[in-house]
């Protein structure tokens, strides 16, 4: 599919002109709907596959690129990847009907942090890394939540793979102020990604965030209360539940790689993707990507030791 677009764009004789035109119109309507005024008029840069992006592509184009989880099974749900200039809502799965525990929140937060790492990796090409320019990201939440979960810790973020010196932490008194700060940050064009953690976002603030994200192609990951009403005006909404960790490479009694079961509950660009069942993915700290959790590796530790051959998902070649 990506090839087809590319050929249409490069002006090569298209295989199927009609389909290409329809696809082009579709993406145009999409960009109109998202109120992204500065977007390229026809095929958005997000439609070009990551590997095929020409080296001469402007930095702006790179910034607008959608980014992927790294796991083909999930990425198939979003052919264009995570849209950069949009609002993505992430909700943990509530353990009870009325409320959510810290662990439920942490599922959503953990997924959001790893998505941010994917975004920064997608953004930071090798050449940028060499020049030592690392993008900034911003974390924003009301003080009530930071009192409950503590403050982001540099040691932990470094362990996950984020550069803590480039993290701005914003703590506001009220949730409305946090929304305000997130919107302001999205408009600044200074940040690779903005992570907001809030109880919920009403229709109007959510629309404002969505517009602000579209203006500057800065993605906004909004982690909301697991049991609250979902926000409107989001490009995607994910339901994330933390699962028992994968096996540790050396020690069967130790927690291994983090695993999440993720479900795409809403997908504006491709509604048919939203109905799919949840997928169990595993985050690898080495390759910094999600992958389908290996069922073989899930067998009890004793079985693996007898077999001796099961390779943990984290080190499996792709």
């Amino acid at each position: 599919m990506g090839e087809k677009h590319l050929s249409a764009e490069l002006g090569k004789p298209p295989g199927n002109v009609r389909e290409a035109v329809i696809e082009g119109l579709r993406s145009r309507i999409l960009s109109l709907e998202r109120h992204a005024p500065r977007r390229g008029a026809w095929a958005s840069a997000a439609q070009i596959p990551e590997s095929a992006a020409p080296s001469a592509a402007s930095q702006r184009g790179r910034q607008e690129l959608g980014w992927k989880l790294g796991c083909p099974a999930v990425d198939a749900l979003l052919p264009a990847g995570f849209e950069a200039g949009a609002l993505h809502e992430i909700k943990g799965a509530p353990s009870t009907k009325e409320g959510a525990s810290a662990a439920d929140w942490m599922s959503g937060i953990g997924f959001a942090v790893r998505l941010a790492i994917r975004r920064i990796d997608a953004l930071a090409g090798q050449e940028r890394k060499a020049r030592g320019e690392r993008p900034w990201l911003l974390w924003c939440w009301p003080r009530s939540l930071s009192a409950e979960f503590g403050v982001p810790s540099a040691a932990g973020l470094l362990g996950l793979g984020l550069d803590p010196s480039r993290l701005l932490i914003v703590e506001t008194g009220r949730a409305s102020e946090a929304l305000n700060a997130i919107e302001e940050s999205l408009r600044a064009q200074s940040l690779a990604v903005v992570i907001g953690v809030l109880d919920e976002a009403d229709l109007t603030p959510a629309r404002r965030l969505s517009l602000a994200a579209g203006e500057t192609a800065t993605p906004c990951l909004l982690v909301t209360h697991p049991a609250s009403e979902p926000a409107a005006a989001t490009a995607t909404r994910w339901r994330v539940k933390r699962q028992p960790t994968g096996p540790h490479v050396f020690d069967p009694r130790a927690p291994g790689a983090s695993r999440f079961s993720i479900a795409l509950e809403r997908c504006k660009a491709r509604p048919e993707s939203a109905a799919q069942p949840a997928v169990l993915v595993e985050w690898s700290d080495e390759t910094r990507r999600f992958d389908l959790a290996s069922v073989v590796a899930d067998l009890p530790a004793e079985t693996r030791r007898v077999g001796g051959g099961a390779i943990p998902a984290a080190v499996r070649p792709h």
Partner: protein
Amino acid sequence: MPSRQPFALIESGAHGFAITAVNGEAARLGIEPGISLADARAAHPGLLSRPAEPEKDRIALLKLARWAGRYGPNRHVDGKDGLWIDITGVAHLFGGEEALLDDIVQRLQSFGIAVQAGLADTLGAAHALARFGCPPGAAWVMSPIMETREAIASLPVEALRLDPSCVLLLKRLGLKRIGQLYDIPRDSVARRFRSSDVASAVLVRLDQALGVAEEPRKPMQPLPVLSVTRAFAEPLISSEALEAFTGELAAELAAALAEKDLGARVLRLTFYRADGTAGSIAAAMSTPSHDARHMLALLKEKFPDMDAGFGVDLLRLDAVRAGESGATQKRFTAGEGSPFRHPSELIDRLVNRFGNAAITVLRPNGSHIPERAEVRLSALDVLAAESSSRVSSYAPPWPYPKRLERPAFLLARPEPIEVTAGVPADPPKSFIWRRVERRVVRAEGPERIASEWWLSLDDEKKKPRTRDYYRIEDQKGALYWVFRHGLYEGEDTSERPSWFLHGLFA
């Protein structure tokens, strides 16, 4: 205050009420500050009186001094009832010194304040002229440039700001006018007085008045690096108009800063209201900036706090602090070809709106105890410091190894948990945190972190205790960072080891 009737302010003293201040009518009747109210009432039964409120007077005078900033940034209150303003290089803006004096006097009189103003080359001479040299019927007196000596020669020695005892002594010696002091040799002044302190006080005050000795004075506010003002014939009330003129001032200030290759660090917009009060709004910046658009955006945020009152007739925009704006910061880009702008503008805007403490960054702190190993500092201050350092983009290194299993969120203080463990030195089998029991499925550890014993050397009671950290996973897959405070053996065992939850893994 009634002006047609004799009126006095009184204060209770050792001998009943004493008069501290009188109005013009009372003064004409011969009532002077210092005499008792009973005596004054005996002579003039119609005398009205009110208790004096020196504290309120002081505050009102400070407000007036703030307002007086429109005539020059270097100004402050002078004693209990005076103001001084340094108008060096300012007079031409008002059309000359006479016009400036007229302007001050007229405005103050329109507020209902009785004024006597003096203008001279030195602060001491101006003080003397204002308080003792005003001819009857005139509101101001001015000594021409370089003629201070002649201008104050005929004034009484009280005008020299001396102690009453000094004045008394001078008068006893027959030295009643300042001019009489000019011709006495300095050595003999010291000889005539009983103590050298008194002599030197007289000489210092005389030198200061004549401009021989410098007299530095602390201004009310730090003097701005650069400032631009705009005066209006008709007071402005609408916020749109104020915003428009603030924009003009910002552009003017930005151009002036750019010319000197400076950038503003702290901005202050002062608005002088027509009723003699003044207010101001300020904004700080993390990186020196001479970008008018950015300055205006920061100030605009604070406009709702601005009370135009009866109208603003003068606006002044000060660059209170400025720094060198390096070539790299001129356009706030992170570098060639980068799609991102430097976040300093964003930080300024957020700080402006939510306060300096709300926007923080993490920086290493030189300790190995987890909660002390890193600090959250104001992003504005950190960026200001790091951008002004010679290293273009300085980021301190983190003292952590590459692969470190640490929680992404540290609780503000470790929370005690109830733990059941099979063997005392083992990781917990289950624990109760926030009233919910969690069963431990897997655990890793311990990571032993010794206490900073050197910090508790002087404290006999506080024994340092080692912490054993475990990374544990409950049945739902949530990961926690818990520690046992204290060891079972080998350490002070008077207190049983206790368990705490310190962080959550994301």
